[in-house]
């Protein structure tokens, strides 16, 4: 018998709205392809059910099972890598009952969960050994995705881990040294670790006109799409950049450009307002969470989510290089959507359950 439904109305309304607008924009971006939209709608419904389901148990269950969850996810990631189908040169999917499933998306949840459960009872500041252990797990997760290859998701997963580590009280000295080291070695990274196409993307960012039909095409067309939307936009389904295929990847990375073209600056403001509301609410929930574990998990989740959104937007408006990162709630893709609902479900569970037996 369910006596009480654990639900945060603000989050529920916020993410439902985002998901609905997302389907609406995807409908336009996919040229009214009903199968795509139908599939995405099913994921939204499934996501909401999942969201409600994971909201119900006490968050301690996540803490206790977090090592198992991380281990399970990593196993799935490796299954995908070794046994999954190769699509566009990448091995990141598992096919099950006609549905494709991308386990690496789940690492954005299981890694912060695990790190939070590992760090929640450690003394401040986090000592070197604990830092090393954390970084080991972060690197493992990052590399397991990076080799697929999927740099965008990998970076986001690493970011989610580092955010938890940082919020848990990573030593400032360590942080300072790391940043300095990255700055010093950046020329080495540029020359040795980046693929030529990645270097191209960075160059293109600073000078897209140098190759307007090659690497500059995407970003030029995206800027034209956004800019030509103007204040009120061209109208739903009327975006010429979108519908005449000038804009690339409209259903995934560049879906924000579709919204900006068809709904203009007004649409962009509304979208940012929705995102900001959800972020603000969860930020409030994080600060007021019942214990350190919940704080760390909610913080890690929500900041990763926030950076995910901002990086995608910054990418399509030409502020940072194109890295291949979907826009949460908007970009086509079931696993990504489900993992977001999962994430908000866990956040809800953590913010709605009172702690009965304080330690």
């Amino acid at each position: 018998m369910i006596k009480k439904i654990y639900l945060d109305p603000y989050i529920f309304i916020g993410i439902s709205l985002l998901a609905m607008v997302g389907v609406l924009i995807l409908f336009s971006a996919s040229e009214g392809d009903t199968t795509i939209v139908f599939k995405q709608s099913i994921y939204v419904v499934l996501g909401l059910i999942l969201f409600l389901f994971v909201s119900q148990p006490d968050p301690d269950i996540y803490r206790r099972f977090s090592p198992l969850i991380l281990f399970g996810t990593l196993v799935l990631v490796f299954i995908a890598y070794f046994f999954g189908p190769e699509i566009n040169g990448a091995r990141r999917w598992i096919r099950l009952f006609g549905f494709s499933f991308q386990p690496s998306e789940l690492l954005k949840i299981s890694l912060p969960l695990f790190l939070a459960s590992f760090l929640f009872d450690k003394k401040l500041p986090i000592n070197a050994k604990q830092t090393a252990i954390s970084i080991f797990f972060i690197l493992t997760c990052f590399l397991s995705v990076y080799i697929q290859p999927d740099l965008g998701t990998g970076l986001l997963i690493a970011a989610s881990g580092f955010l938890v580590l940082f919020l848990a009280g990573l030593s400032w000295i360590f942080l300072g040294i790391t940043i300095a080291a990255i700055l010093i070695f950046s020329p080495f990274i540029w020359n040795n670790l980046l693929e030529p196409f990645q270097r191209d993307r960075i160059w293109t960012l600073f000078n897209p006109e140098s190759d307007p039909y090659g690497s500059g095409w995407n970003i030029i067309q995206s800027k034209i799409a956004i800019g030509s939307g103007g204040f009120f936009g061209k109208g739903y389904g009327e975006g010429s950049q979108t519908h005449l295929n000038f804009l690339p990847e409209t259903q995934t990375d560049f879906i924000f450009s579709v919204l900006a073209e068809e709904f203009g600056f007004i649409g962009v403001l509304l979208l940012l307002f929705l995102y900001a509301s959800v972020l603000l609410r969860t930020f409030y929930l994080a600060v007021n969470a019942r214990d350190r574990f919940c704080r760390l998990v909610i913080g890690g989740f929500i900041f990763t989510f926030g950076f995910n959104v901002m990086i995608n937007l910054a990418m399509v408006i030409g502020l940072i290089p194109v890295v291949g990162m979907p826009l949460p709630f908007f970009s086509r893709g079931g696993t990504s959507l489900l993992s977001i609902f999962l994430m908000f479900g866990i956040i809800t569970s953590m913010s709605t359950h009172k702690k009965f037996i304080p330690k």
Partner: protein
Amino acid sequence: MDFHERQLERQSFSQRSLLVASLLLIFIVVILFRTFSLQISNFTEFDEASLNNRTYSVPVQPLRGEILDRNGEVISENIATFDLVTTPRDIKDVDAFIEKIEKIIDLDKDEIDLYIKNFNSKAFFNRELVLKKNLSEIEIARFEVRGFEHKEAFVGKRFRRISRYDEILSHVLGYTGGARENNLDEQNRFRSNSWRDAVFSYANGLIEGKAGLEKTYNQSLTGTFGIKQFEVDARGRLVKELSYTPPINGENILTTLDIDAQKVAANQLGKRKGSIVVVDVETGGIVAIYSYPTFSVNKMANGISQLDYEDLINDPDKPFFDRSVAGRYPPASTIKPLVGIHALNRGQISWTTKIDDPGFFELPEDGRIFRSWGEIAHGLINLNQALIRSSNTFFFNLAYNSGINELADDFEKFGFGSTVCVDCILEDGGLVPRPQWKMNNLNFGWFKGDTVNIGVGQGYISATPIQLAHYTAALANKGIKKPLFLNNSLSGKVPSSEIELENFNQRDWRLLHKAMESVVESDYGTARRIRDQKDFLIAAKTGTGEIISLDSREEYERIREDQGLRDHAIIVAFAPAEKPKYAVSVIIENGESGGSVAGPVALSILKELLKE
């Protein structure tokens, strides 16, 4: 963790998460700012870029204006034919396609080769390509029955530029040929790549005037291209038509030409090299202008085989050369009326002054002998008789007693030495020589003998047939000079001028006309052969243009064996003599006798023009 530690931890978390949150906030602000800059500040720029992306304007070819003769008869027109038009974009395998078409429609090897050549260079996007022109009704029927099998080809109505008088109006009419796109888009209304998708009205695609009237009046003949605006996708495929502005066809041109006179001119000249120019004395309009050998403008405009073209180019008689406006000939004795006017005007002689003609002229300076044609002695003669009989000695004398610069001044007053036609193409100005010219070009000083030669229109002087017609019209108009033209709309707009001759009055003009009438009417006249074949009076002056200067008749008989060295037969004439309407100049290369060879030609044309 004790309570204090927990407080510390909470505080640390709040601070750190606030830090991350501020970072996100900065992100949001930057993104908002940037989006604002794209969508609001630079909206116009991106809006235009998006419009440029999605729209594509394709030119729609107008029909060229027609060219009409002065009576409104069409002399250059657009004839529609049904052609087999293909859309290369839809053809995957050209050879298989040709094989398929060949089963229904006969194609010769040239057509196939040309098609494949063009196919490979132009088979992009939406461009159409004509495979076979001018399908017969049977071919159309055969194709249409199977039309559904050939989505990549259709029977389309396409125009060709055709003249019914393609051989007799060649030089004056000119022809059309492939045009450069930028010539047709002076207002820059189209992107350069949109020309390959142009909607054609002509089977030959984009055309422009390459010679003659087609070139001179190309702009007004061409008309204004229409615009078909399409929406295109990123691959350049046409999605739908957005708007259509129809083309404005070119303006018709009413010319001063008279096709009947032109036909007579061509008939009369026949296969003889030469030129005929007829001018309307009252306006200056060119009524007929013909040069032989000639070529077919239809072939030039609509496809001539490489072999035929090479034959034309390599022909030693130069069929493309328009003798009428660019052929330099010695005016010969036709210049004598002008020399007479010159001498009378400066008071050198009067109509009664008599000069002895022993059949030759001896240059006092060095005793050099200048002979008359045939070395006939005319005895003591005045200007009237000298003109009728075309005495060389008389005019040698006049020239000798004048000066080269004075003579040249008066020659130029009558249009020699410069172009005389307002809208002719490639017109040559001929040459009125002066001592300075000789020094510059031949590096020799001027001799008195050079002046003497010019007195009979020989030596360094040269004139074009059109200049002679212009000069004759000025004589007929008693000193009123009118620039010549072909476009009837110039009639009355070209300013005429009175030639300055202080001491040459109306009585002198009457006497001069009388003398020129007598060239035909008198028993001694050099053109007496045409005297009895007409019912109106003709005033004329004949000439025999020497190609090389010789000392005696015997010598000429010797070189006569070579037809190319025989003298040119020339006549200038105007009629009716009492109230002149038409002036004509006829030059027949190597025709030898102005009076009896060129004379009948001039007569026939004048009879055609003056018939009631």
